[in-house]
């Protein structure tokens, strides 16, 4: 079920699928898992798409494919109307600046041996943007942006709290000035207070920089507050994909209704949204 919205989309995928196979020593596949298939999505500049579903529905896999961290088995991905899957690794390098991923667990996403400044400036280092000094200054600026004190820049991830580590991860993701951020359950590992802070940060950033977000989440309450469009995933397939208001008001698919049923009553959701 595709949603057609007038105007070019900044990120579009068609018929995307990913299969994991564990091959035996002699090349015969023993074990095949279809993470997701037949996924069609389109998202427009400056909006937030939320992909919801239970754990294990293939959402993380989809997130990684979108962020070009894994290669899908089939389908096409268009970033700013350019087909990216047929590019070589070298050609992809500039494209990677447009889209970045925030991981669920910030601790594992940061190299424990590096300092915060080194972590944040790493994308600049890899893409060889600016001089070492400028990279460092940029890192400090980004820290300020996400609400961290630049004095903490020489500290290692161990010395920060969970919420702060996620901020570092966000700062790092912003280093290359992407247009699209994919957040793979980025808030799930945080407590309520931290979630609120990060959400505020994210919405400010979106407003300032006209960012596009793809939120992967199993938390419908969260999604209800922030999403413009919602795609519901079940067992690796998108079962419903429409404007958020529409979805919450008039869920079509039975699975969507099941999900919503487990949440708070409709009225409060709609009330939250209109606020």
């Amino acid at each position, binding site marked *: 079920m595709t949603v057609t919205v007038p105007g070019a989309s900044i990120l579009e995928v068609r018929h995307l699928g990913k299969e994991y196979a564990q091959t035996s*020593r002699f090349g015969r596949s023993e074990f095949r898992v279809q993470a997701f298939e037949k996924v069609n999505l389109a998202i427009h500049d400056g909006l937030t798409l939320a992909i919801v579903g239970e754990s294990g529905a293939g959402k993380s896999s989809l997130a*990684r494919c979108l*962020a*070009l*961290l894994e290669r899908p088995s089939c389908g096409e991905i268009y970033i700013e109307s350019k087909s990216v899957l047929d590019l070589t690794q070298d050609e*992809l*390098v500039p494209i*990677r*600046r447009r889209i*970045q*991923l925030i*991981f669920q*667990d910030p*601790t*594992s*996403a*940061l*190299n*424990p*041996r590096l300092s915060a400044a080194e*972590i944040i400036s*790493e*994308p600049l280092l*890899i*893409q060889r943007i600016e001089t070492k000094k400028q990279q460092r200054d940029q890192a400090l600026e980004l820290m300020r942006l996400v609400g961290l004190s630049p004095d903490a820049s020489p500290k290692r*991830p*161990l010395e920060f709290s969970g919420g702060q580590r996620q901020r570092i991860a966000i700062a*790092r993701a912003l280093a*290359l000035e992407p247009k699209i951020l994919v957040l793979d359950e980025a808030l799930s590992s945080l407590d309520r207070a931290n979630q609120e802070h990060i959400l505020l940060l994210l919405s400010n950033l979106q407003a300032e920089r006209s960012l596009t977000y793809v939120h992967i989440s199993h938390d419908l309450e969260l999604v209800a507050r922030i999403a413009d469009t919602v795609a519901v995933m079940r067992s690796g397939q998108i079962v419903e994909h429409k404007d958020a208001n529409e979805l919450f008001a008039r869920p079509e698919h039975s699975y969507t209704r099941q999900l919503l049923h487990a949440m708070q009553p409709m009225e409060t959701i709609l009330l939250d949204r209109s606020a």
Partner: protein
Amino acid sequence: MLKHRRKLVAGAILLAGFHVAVLLAGFFAPYGYATQNREMPYMPPSGLHLVDAQGKVHLRPFVYGWRDDGSGALKLDSTQSYPVHFFVQGWPYNVGGLVHSRMHLFGVAEPGRVCLLGTDGFGRDQFSRFLYGGQVSLLAGLIAAALSVSLGVLVGALAGFYGGWIDETLMRCGELFLALPWLYLLFAVRAAMPLQITQWQVFLLLVSVLGLIGWARPARLVRGIVLSAKERNFVVAARGFGASNGYLIRRHVMPQASGVALTQVTLLIPQYVLAEVTLTFLGLGVSEPMPSWGSLLSALQQYYVLSSYWWMFLPAALLIPLFLAYYLAADALQEHWKPVSL
């Protein structure tokens, strides 16, 4: 953490002391390693005394001379005493072929001899030979260990990072090498070497073979680390920034492995030193006149030496603190470098 610090420091001090003494063997040794004294074969260690036969206390330690008591055997002669002087001029030597000197830490005037570990069948001072022998044996161990671990790190990194058939083939090779009884293989290679080659060539060949045999275990360990490091999210993230494989290996994966690599080197050095000593002991390592700890001990294969001249065991006994130091250091390193996980 504190306990490991102490272990590491103790080990490091012992090691440093040993290695410095061996490196500057010329300085610490009163005699050259080949200086023979046919009149004094198999002499027990010269005791250092502070109180002489008359009961007088001297500040400067001295050794007694030796005198033929008429039956051909030498006896300790307490009428002749030779004071030990420090920083004396003696045999010329060089350090690494660069620094030439005649200065020794201690010595006695001729015809006195100060042999702290006794002498061997040719009257050569065992203490000096121990220090010089250390140059050969320790160097062999160090080079071989460095070689093994370097090779192991290379193979392990390649196998772990690229996976697939590269991994399969490399690990199978590793299994092959682990299955080899290495001492036997060493002999096979030694058998292959012609008898008429220079000692340096023997030394280098031995060291290279030792190094080449032992890569399998470090490789396996490094591979494990690389495998787990490869999947860590921060490596995936770096890939997302457009990092090349080389960068990933260099910046993120290898530092995780460096701890293991260093520990492996520390563990392997004593093993390889022992291998060289064993080989030379059996007459298959470096040969005379190049000294090695093995050649110091090889005389013990003769029964009468074994049962009568106890000081010939001393070089072997001195190996114990050396190995202890290495194992201490390795233990401490292993504790210190447990994989960093949050």
